[in-house]
């Protein structure tokens, strides 16, 4: 992935149970310092998503790495950034603690 260029990535999620599940995904970026350069244009996260029983869906993320990443001397040794998602089951009335997100 080239900093400044938009890129597409896919994750896959499966609901192995016999009941529909409503979940919310949140993400994490490693290394931590690279997270500030990671910009999501659109993804499947932060909103409730419904997975029907046995359903398997592709989950896209459309993003770019801020071009300033290439200028940051602290990032000089970083050639691998890992983006991970965790899917939580949404309970009614529960809000994920997302600092800075209303």
């Amino acid at each position, binding site marked *: *992935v*080239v900093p400044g*260029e*938009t*890129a*597409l990535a*896919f994750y896959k999620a499966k609901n192995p149970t016999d009941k529909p599940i*409503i979940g919310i995904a*949140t*993400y*994490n*970026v490693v290394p*931590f310092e690279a*997270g500030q350069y990671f*910009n*999501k*244009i*659109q*993804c*499947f*996260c*932060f*909103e*409730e*998503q*419904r*997975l*029907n029983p046995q*359903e398997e*869906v*592709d*989950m*896209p993320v*459309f993003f*770019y790495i801020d071009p300033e990443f290439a200028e940051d001397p602290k990032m000089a040794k970083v050639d691998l950034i890992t983006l991970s998602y965790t899917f939580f089951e949404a309970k009614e009335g529960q809000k994920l603690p*997302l*600092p*800075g*997100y209303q």
Partner: protein
Amino acid sequence: MSTAMNFSNKSFAPRPPDKGAFPLDHFGECSAFKERFMECLRRSGYESAACRQSAMAYLECRMDRRVGPGAGAAGTPLRGREGKQLMANEPLEKLGFKDLINEKSEEKPEKS
């Protein structure tokens, strides 16, 4: 209380995406485009830049599709969003595909 000084004692503050969330493609309407994109990535050794054309095609597919009550009960997205597309229409130039669009329009005069 935890006063442990972790070597990196900052908390990661997740940011929401600029253009919001993608509704799920429950019916796999754009799966073919996704497969083509993934094949391209495998062929190119996972170089994202080599597969931008396929990525653009996938996003165009999403913008052309609508998901809503009319499409079938199982595919209804949450919160009753009526007739919602799989992706809001956005000019492709704004999604970082400006150079690919220019290439396309340069080809056109020759075809006429």
